[in-house]
């Protein structure tokens, strides 16, 4: 193991690019559970009716904690495509393609497009959510052993 000798091969979780998703570290862990079921969800306030994205533990409009999970569309239409060819962060493919996506008028989401070649995606194309596994995080367990926190995340891909 090369690296910081004092860390003795330990993994600096705070440098991880994906969020912590388990119940122990996140009160919106259900969002990630839903992703595993192929659902793209967020929270809606039962008191004032405002739907927020990303999901919350309080309503940013009326500060109520009375929230419920609601589904967002998993398919949408491309409005703008960007293709990053220089400066792609570690952990992402080059070229890194993004699109501004209209999710059936319910949300405009600037998201990563995977399984896509340069020049392939155009305005007006249909895209759908794609869920993929990301590296698990080692979590300190009792008596010094590690527990693996399994994780997923989402991007979009072209409907073919």
């Amino acid at each position, binding site marked *: 193991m090369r690296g910081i000798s004092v860390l003795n091969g330990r993994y600096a979780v705070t*440098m991880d*690019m*994906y*969020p912590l998703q388990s119940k122990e570290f996140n009160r919106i862990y259900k969002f990630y559970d839903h992703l595993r079921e192929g659902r793209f969800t967020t929270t809606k306030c039962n008191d004032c009716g405002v739907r927020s*994205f*990303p999901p919350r533990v309080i309503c940013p409009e009326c500060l109520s904690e009375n929230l419920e999970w609601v589904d967002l569309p998993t398919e949408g239409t491309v409005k*703008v495509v*960007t*293709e*990053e*060819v*220089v*400066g*792609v*962060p*570690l*952990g*992402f493919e080059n070229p*890194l393609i*993004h699109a*501004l996506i209209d999710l059936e008028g319910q*949300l*405009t*989401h*600037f*998201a*990563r497009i995977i399984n896509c070649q340069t020049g392939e995606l155009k305005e007006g194309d249909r895209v759908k959510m794609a869920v993929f596994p990301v590296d698990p995080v080692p979590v300190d367990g009792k008596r010094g052993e590690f527990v693996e926190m399994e994780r997923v*995340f989402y*991007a979009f891909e072209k409907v073919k």
Partner: protein
Amino acid sequence: MERNVCIIAGGMSQWGVRQASQRDVFQEAGKACFETIPALSNKDVDGLIVASAYTERCSFQTHLAPVIAEYLGIKPRNICARVELLCASGSSGIILAYGLVKAGIADVVMVIGGEKLYTPQRWEIQYSELASVDHDWDGSQGLGLPPPAFSMVAQQHMKKFGTTEEQLALVSVKNRRNGLNNPKGQFQQEITLEEALSAKAIVPPLKLYDCCPVTDGAAAVILACEEKAKYYTDKPLVYIKGTGQATVNNMSANMPDWTTWEALKIAAKQAYEKAGVKPSDIDVAQTHDCFTISEIIEYEDLGFCEKGEGGLFIQEGRSDFGGVVPVNTDGGLLSCGHPFGGTGIRQGMEIMKQLRGEAVRQVEGARTGLTHNLSGFIAAHTVLIYGRDI
């Protein structure tokens, strides 16, 4: 008891890819600032505000303000703290210092900001910037570095208003030319329109010269109440007249409009109203040209021209010397570089020099100036108005 507040000194370190540490560049900036005001010593400063975004990530240093105070021989009594708003950290520091001096909590405050972004491993820069947007939602989509967002903005502005790649490039040509006025900036080379248009793609339509670089460096200014300002300097007094800072969303999914920046319009309105001036009163401006498209939208949303006419504004030379309002007279981010915490301070320093009549390349008779920063995922905007008249 509200007091008038003046900006009385400013200096910067050499900016660029520096063979120096974080604390080295802060020392250089502090010394350069003190050298411009011989009557004032480091012992006269009673407050210190340090602006830096990536201090923990790139230098593993929190509690930064006392570090810088110790290195500059400053022993603050009224405030000694760090402020962070990424690209607008520096102007946030100036606003806070302004408020403290205005309210009588401090009399003489140094605002110093900067970054050490180049680390031995180059990949860390792009990776670290995943923290600059909403980490859990935008960062995890790979949207850390800003070019994709500004490419998307540029494409929409071009489609909606007919803005051209040539108009984008002209912003870079102007600011590179103005950068010759700043020997401490990152670049001192002019570029031609052809070079700008044929440069390598970053995120089309944005090419190399459409994007500001990654920069190490720091800058410092000193703010004082009017009474102390008169005591320490014989130079013309430059007042802070009005400020505004606004945010209406952070995550990209909540951006109300990509080509009209609502938070900028709010921040500008606040600053203009507090200063009692109109856009047409601004003689010189330093705006946040992190990308060429940004400067074009800023002309529009700051009210220098009508919405959609930003492309024509640059093409017709109205933002150049001799035009309606010369913008980024010291080279802006595109030429000076962009060490996040240092940028707003460099801008304030250039406006101070312009209003005193001592800029390297002077806007004749300038009496009112403006600075603007955007920060994060176009998520916050900061505007300050400076003037010779209060």
